[in-house]
């Protein structure tokens, strides 16, 4: 399946991926409303770590054998057989964050429900990849070899 891969040597620590992820997962889909006025504030599913010298944007790896799906106590976290996307059903999720406690990559963030990347529900290009100014995030199915 196509996944998002981060190339740390190209990441500029600009955090635009976070801004546009929030926008893509907001109600208004407007970059200003989503990031400034909308309540409850939408959450970014990608997070940038590091500083100007070295940084990288981390979002869900959509693992083949997802630990978070196994650990989810309500069955809200599932991996779609066809698309391979691991996503959370926001109604069923009770926000206990057990998934967060087992994800070895730190791709899940705390919120009213588990905040994690859903690859923009199979858009042709996730918002973070589309808005990365330096192609530090690529959306390919090369298994990260090309990374």
């Amino acid at each position, binding site marked *: 399946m196509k996944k998002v891969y981060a190339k740390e040597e190209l990441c500029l620590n600009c955090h635009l991926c976070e801004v546009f992820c929030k926008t893509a997962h907001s109600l208004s889909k407007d970059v200003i409303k989503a990031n400034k006025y909308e309540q409850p504030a939408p959450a970014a599913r990608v997070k940038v770590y590091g500083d100007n010298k070295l940084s990288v944007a981390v979002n869900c790896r959509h693992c083949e054998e997802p630990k978070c799906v*196994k650990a989810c106590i309500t069955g809200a976290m599932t991996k779609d057989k066809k698309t391979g996307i691991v996503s959370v059903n926001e109604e069923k999720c009770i926000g206990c964050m057990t998934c967060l*406690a087992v994800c070895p990559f730190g791709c899940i963030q705390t919120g009213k429900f588990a905040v994690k990347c859903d690859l923009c529900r199979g858009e042709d290009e996730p918002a973070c990849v589309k808005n990365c100014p330096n192609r530090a995030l690529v959306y390919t199915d090369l298994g990260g070899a090309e990374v």
Partner: protein
Amino acid sequence: MKYIIIGASAAGLACAEQIRKEDAAGSITVMTGEHYLPYSRPTISYYLKGALKPSDMYLRKPSYYAANGIEILTDTPAREINRENKTVKAGRKSYAYDKLCICTGSKPFIPPMKHVEGKANAYTFLDFAGAKILKQKATPNTKAVIIGAGLIGMKAAEGLSKICQSVDVVELAPRILPSILDEASAKKVQKYIEEKGHIHFHLGDTVKEAKSKDKRITSLILNSGKELPCDMLVLAVGVRPETQLAEQAGIETDRGILTDPATMRTSDSDIYAAGDCTVSVDMLDGSKKILALYPNAVYQGTAAGSQMAGGNILVSGTYAVNAIDFYGLRICTCGLINAQGPQYTDKTAQHGDRYKRLIFENNRLVGFVLINAGENAGIYTSLIENRTDLAEIQTDIFDTPSLFMFEKAQRQKRLKGESV
């Protein structure tokens, strides 16, 4: 092949699904004494406090089981396992099996208390049915008393506090959530809960006897002599593995059903066991323990199912990991939290309402307790599970864990999503 699974919760469902994945033809029958299709037990407290609709509690859509050829027999408690002719008696019928898996989970442990047995308003809080009764019975002016300040007791207290004005919790140990919190963190959480949930704690105390009137408890006399008026009593002292069926069938047990920690096979080669009813081996210190936790049940169920269907999935390593929240206060714990012994050291970092306690064994992380400081806790968990030598960690262990903890090669592996 005919597969029978006793118990339809986390372990039972995981086992059934794994069998189906590896054996498309075999007939799979899952028996449960409960009235409901497989549902998530930990969510009953969210149901009790009205945060979750019943329909959202089910683990799979009803149509799922037929679609995947898994037969669920509700209201069918297994009565007896006949190992000679490999059959299970339930109700008036007996079901033959080639491979059997016992996933009977745990049962409430009720300590000896005078005049509590059989009282109409003494309840347990383990399953959906129990939660439904509490929800029906509880009214704003019900005086609720919960015995036990463990995970279940505290969750029951939180739920009831949304309905009843007066909620009292009685706990033998000197602090709440003794199994997952230490002295300092327990005090902080207790103070927080008392503010948020108007719950009264009676620590280091227990119920000596109960006064009752025509089969209903009216008040409780504690060891300390205090008397608590009580219309509803919830027994949440603890749980024990449900091993009654296994013991009758002569399968080895020691507090829980004994199994091979990797294949989950019991002393009978055609019988497996998984979940809360088994005894696990804690990979962190090798000791045998009851690790009644949802993720472990799923791993064990999956391994048992695979072995039963001739597959080769094993349980890699079992340890405790827990994430729970009370009134928005998030607690996340993992590993040996109350480990004693010279080789264990621990350090705590606290600022404002963030509390982070890390437990080390020589140069390895073996446990943590995080309160409102759970960001990327899973990375700590992976350090524990992979027994990572902390010398390799590039950043300060107390910083929020990130992939920058690992040097470049390791980091690249994780960025590429290779399993770690």
